[in-house]
């Protein structure tokens, strides 16, 4: 089983610090970065893949520095960008063929592989259509197809569900479930429902730092008893900026009962996400203080 390890990874853009010594580890299965916009999710993914140079720290695959592995690392990597660039004049087939060839796939396997991945993302009927005629969701699915083509060991998806409709999101999850037994999958998102039922390990990021890093059930254990549902008529009793809404409920994070009729709620990944933003100290054992 391969292990992708990130140690004290830091990145600065001029004076602005984007990553502050991030340390985490990814193994086979679905690993997710969860955090708000600007938390550093894309930066860490770019540094892990080598799209941008890191300022400090190490990224290793089975103990080997990935930046020294060069071609061997890239051969094992599939990356889907947040805004995947395309050639609008190419057909879906041409686009995938180019990437298959650049990935070094043997020519005799390419046609079957293109058909396979397009079928997986439900684009088989559009194989000869020009990309310029694709909708946003179709482009996103084509980007996913490009990423998983050639069955790389490490799959990195940056905001993969952007532009996908609910059905396509579920389909994306199914693809991830199929691949998780043999790949290290890293997904960055700020949409909890993308990963809530499938992820094996969760890294919550905020302002370039890791706020929490564990299996989702363990992280939920940290916040059990801290999540409160607030009745509508008691909402004005607490500052609104401490409230978040989930489905029909208004919730807050607190070590004590925040309002007279508030009731505790079984934590979800959504709660975990808001805990990461509202009360980062919870994961470092500071919630009781």
């Amino acid at each position: 089983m391969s292990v992708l390890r990130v140690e004290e990874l830091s990145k600065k853009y001029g004076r602005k610090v984007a990553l502050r010594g991030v340390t985490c580890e990814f193994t086979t299965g679905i690993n997710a970065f969860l955090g708000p916009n600007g938390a550093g999710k894309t930066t860490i993914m770019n540094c892990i893949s080598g799209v941008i140079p890191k300022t400090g720290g190490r990224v290793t695959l089975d103990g080997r520095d990935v930046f020294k592995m060069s071609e061997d690392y890239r051969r094992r990597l599939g990356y889907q960008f947040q805004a995947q660039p395309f050639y609008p004049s190419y057909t879906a087939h041409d686009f995938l063929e180019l990437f298959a060839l650049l990935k070094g796939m043997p020519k005799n396997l390419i046609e079957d592989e293109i058909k396979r991945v397009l079928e997986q993302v439900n684009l088989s009927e559009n194989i000869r259509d020009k990309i310029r005629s694709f909708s946003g969701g179709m482009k996103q699915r084509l980007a996913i197809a490009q990423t998983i083509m050639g069955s790389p060991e490490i799959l990195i998806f940056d905001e993969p569900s952007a532009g996908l409709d609910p059905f396509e999101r579920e389909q994306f999850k199914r693809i991830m479930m199929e691949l998780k037994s043999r790949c290290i999958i890293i997904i960055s998102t700020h949409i909890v429902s993308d990963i809530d039922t499938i992820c094996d390990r969760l890294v919550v990021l905020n302002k370039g730092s890791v706020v929490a890093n564990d299996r989702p059930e363990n992280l939920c254990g940290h916040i059990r008893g801290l999540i409160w549902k607030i009745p509508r008529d008691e909402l004005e009793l607490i500052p609104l900026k401490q409230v978040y809404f989930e489905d029909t409920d208004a919730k807050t994070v607190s070590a004590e009962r925040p309002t007279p009729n508030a009731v505790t709620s079984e934590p979800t990944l959504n709660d975990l996400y808001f805990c990461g933003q509202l009360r980062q100290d919870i994961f470092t054992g500071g919630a009781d203080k």
Partner: protein
Amino acid sequence: MNAFLFMLKKAIRPTVAVTVGLTCFAVLFMIASFKSAYGDDKLYAACFDSLDEGEEGYNAARYNSEKLSAEDKEILDKADRYISTHSNGSVPPILPNEMVDEIFETLFGDSETAGSSQYQAVYGLISKQLYSQTFSRELIKERTEGYSRNIRRGVTDEYSLKIAELMMDDYEKVLEKEENHRERYDTRYANNFIGFISSEPISYIGIFLLLFSSFSAELQSGRYKAFKLTKTGAVGYSSYRIIIGILQAAVFFSVYFFALYTAVILSSETKISSMPMQYLSGFELSHLPINFGGFVLRIYFMKLSFTLMLSAAVMLLSMVSRRIIPSAIVCLIPLAAPAALSRIDISLNENLRQMMTCDIIGMNNDIGAINIGGSPIDVAAVFFIAVIMIAVCSAAAALILSGRRGFDA
């Protein structure tokens, strides 16, 4: 390799579009400009054929041209005299009808004896062409005698002696070649082809259209990042792109050049490709013992190497500038530089100026040799080596830069 072939296949369509479009335009433009400058081909051929062979033919053409010019001048002077003697204050007089008719007949009439301006232009052109064909041999002989005289007088400068020796050898071959050519050639199109190809900007426009966005479009769109993460990597992708860019430029320029040459050959009634290149106006003293066809091949290789150098430079700048609009601006610099340098009066070594501006006329119309370490080296060879070195350095710089933008350096 498969990725390279795929990318090459994708580059065919834009290359064909640019090549066909610009070549058709250039051929039409060149032929139209020649036609308008030469007037009536039949009249030219009639005058040309009416002249005797050799020096007498040249003298007759010159005489006719001067005579017709004198007649034109005489009738115009007559009109001037009439105006000055009949003017009434500031009001100019009206010329008598018979004088107006005479002027029109003399200048624009249809008969040779009337001395029309059209005939005068034709004889002027013929005399200019026949000068090279008639006197090239004499001029070369005079020059070789000059070299012999210098050697006899005991010139001790080693380089001068070497160049004299080299030139005398070359000129001997030129004279031998010319001995076999007693034919007279209509060199109008050949002369103007050389003039056109030495200063035309259309091939530079082609290079610009094909290559200015070769890297900047990939960098701006973010595709370059995606290529970087494949097994081929940034350096592999960039090397494919550079080779394809060079091939695109070479194909474009070759088609462009030979289409123009073919148009010239088809337009010329005489077989100019086999005439000695010294028959071209301005090339009487060239030391190259080759015919016009060989000379065209020589300038093809010189221009091609220069084009490839510019292509490599454009691709490097496309990578440096990163975005499409800035690269469009920056890439104009190396393409416009040769034309600008040839028009700006700056003090430069003449050989250096010729090479920097790809002055194929200057590099070939006389003693085309450069003093390198005391030995005369063919200017075309030096030019060729220099531009290929710059092209290779530009391509290498682009590759190094592409590696620095990824981690696969």
